[in-house]
């Protein structure tokens, strides 16, 4: 650009002055947003399909393509998925599973987060002999395929006498949530200044007081991350939900699987999609609402040199 102005051959060449002129639609910008648009289509397509299909009637589904918006919007599939779809003799749709999921998720999330955060805190600030060893094993634990643990857990729960109960499931979720959550909390707590902890000890605060009054209030981002991870993880869990529960307390995912797989006559795609959406609604809403905090928390807790 500078050269242009130097070459005074150009009739109305102006001296470069002020802000460098930028074209709004430069080639690279078009590329950039173009790629982003294509990528977004890839990510949004399934959601679009689900929503559109769930709003169509069966005849329209048979006729039209899955990407077309409904000609005639009907909420019947949603109603059916929520409260009428049958598995065997139970024709109350997902509604039952929803409350079960809530009952399972809420205590599991709370307990697993409390346990893991206290663990992370103890690991960072109250190291004792062997604590690193346990931590390392715990991290290994997070990579063990669940199937390996399935049978031992069945035995464990049987011996504890809580197989098939809500308590059993909470325990299982707490156990399997522990590795990754502890890692998150440990990384986060170790990024907090150690001096704060020391100051509190000089001030005569004990283990729990430091935890509740100093650590917890400063850890909102990581609690949000843990909350999101656990809510979605537990809400979406299928394997434990089906193996460690019984029909009365089946979570929504199991109910979803039942509905989708209980084909009675033709597959009712619209109902299935509505059911799928309903099942994913809670985690989706949570992501849409707190995605920003999640990203920030990830940066604070997960990605550490």
């Amino acid at each position: 650009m500078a050269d242009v102005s130097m070459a005074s051959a150009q009739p109305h060449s102006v001296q470069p002055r002020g802000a460098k002129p930028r074209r709004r639609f430069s080639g690279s910008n078009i590329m950039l947003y173009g790629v982003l648009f294509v990528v977004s289509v890839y990510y949004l397509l399934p959601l679009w399909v689900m929503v559109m299909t769930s709003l169509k009637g069966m005849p329209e589904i048979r006729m039209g393509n899955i990407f077309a918006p409904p000609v005639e919007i009907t909420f019947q599939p949603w109603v059916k998925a929520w409260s009428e779809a049958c598995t065997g003799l139970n024709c109350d749709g997902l509604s039952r599973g929803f409350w079960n999921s809530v009952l399972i998720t809420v205590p599991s999330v709370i307990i697993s987060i409390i346990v893991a955060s206290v663990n992370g805190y103890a690991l960072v600030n109250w190291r004792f002999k062997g604590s690193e060893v346990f931590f390392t094993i715990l991290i290994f634990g997070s990579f063990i395929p669940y199937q390996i643990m399935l049978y031992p857990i069945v035995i464990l729960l049987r011996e504890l006498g809580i197989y098939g109960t809500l308590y059993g499931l909470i325990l299982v979720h707490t156990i399997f949530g522990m590795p990754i959550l502890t890692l998150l909390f440990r990384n986060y707590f170790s990024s907090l200044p150690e001096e704060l902890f020391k100051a509190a000890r000089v001030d005569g605060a004990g283990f729990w007081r430091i935890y509740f009054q100093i650590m917890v209030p400063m850890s909102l981002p990581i609690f949000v991350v843990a909350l999101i991870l656990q809510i979605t993880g537990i809400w979406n869990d299928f394997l434990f939900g089906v193996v460690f529960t019984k029909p009365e307390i089946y979570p929504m995912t199991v109910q979803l699987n039942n509905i989708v797989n209980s084909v009675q006559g033709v597959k009712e795609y619209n109902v299935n999609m509505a059911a799928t959406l309903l099942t994913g609604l809670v985690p989706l809403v949570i992501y849409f609402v707190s995605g920003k905090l999640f990203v920030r928390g990830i940066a604070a807790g997960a990605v550490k040199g």
Partner: protein
Amino acid sequence: MTHSIQVKDLSLSFGSVSVLKNMNIDVAEGEFIVLLGPSGCGKSTLLNCLAGLLDITDGEIWIKGKNVTWAEPSERGIGMVFQSYALYPQMTVRGNLSFGLKNARMPKDEIDKRIARAAEILQIGPLLDRKPAALSGGQRQRVAIGRALVRDVDVFLFDEPLSNLDAKLRSELRVEIKRLHSRLNNTMVYVTHDQIEALTLADRIAVMRGGIIQQLAAPQEIYNRPSNLFVAGFIGSPSMNFLHGATVEAGRAFQFGATRIDLAGYEGGAVLDRPKAILGLRPEHLIIQDKPEPGLTIPAVVEIDEPMGADSLVWLEAEGGLKMSVRVPVERRLAAGSKVHLKVDIAKASIFDTASEQRV
């Protein structure tokens, strides 16, 4: 004198926040300019504008007689050294030095020649195959300078290159940079908020505040004749002592509480009578003595003395609770509470108008 850098009416805003306001600076070929100022005053911003790393809002920048306002950083003939050095961590020192050259498709032997020369100047020959992580702070700094050096640039820009180092290393590297400058004779623009660095390195210092240059002058000039209250207070450690009073007797004396000080010998403009004025006295321009001399001394009470090795700093309280500091040789110990008199060297004092804050 050829101009190396000319900044004309430069302004820069981030959105609605105006950070640099209508700046004009001319830097001569081979000059060492230090930008000094408190944190957030816009020093780094100005440097980044010179380097082309920030798009300015208004004005022009000329380097070596070329208008580079819109030029890319790499086309401006500048080299930059950052506070954190910003070495490429996974490349060896040689890789760091050659990366830019290779990218410009310079022939291999020319690259080698340049690296050899830089290594020789900076004495980093034995380090060429190490990675930055294996270097000490001072060595890293040299490599960072080397990266500018190999590019054979006319202008070096430094952004607080020493502020990450400990005091000892800092003073050593300061001297090295000065030597480098006297050897290369490049134009250098150097940002710091450390006044010792500014005073020792600069040919001229630009004291900045809130995006405006307060004074641009040689170090001794700035130290001895600060153009306003801000510069006077900012330069010098401990700070200049400020006595709030009035000039009286048609500008021939300064009245401070019950004390009156003769202004005969003051080097400055017409003092005049000002109902509100400030007399600035540097700690080393006061002499502690036991006896008063009317018109020449200020009575004070010793509070604390701080021996600092070579000399000692005495803190006193003058009339009206005013805290003052005086520099004395370290051998001289003064008991707290003793009453003394401070003799003023009026030739080295500064008087400021309270309203305009300008030196008179």
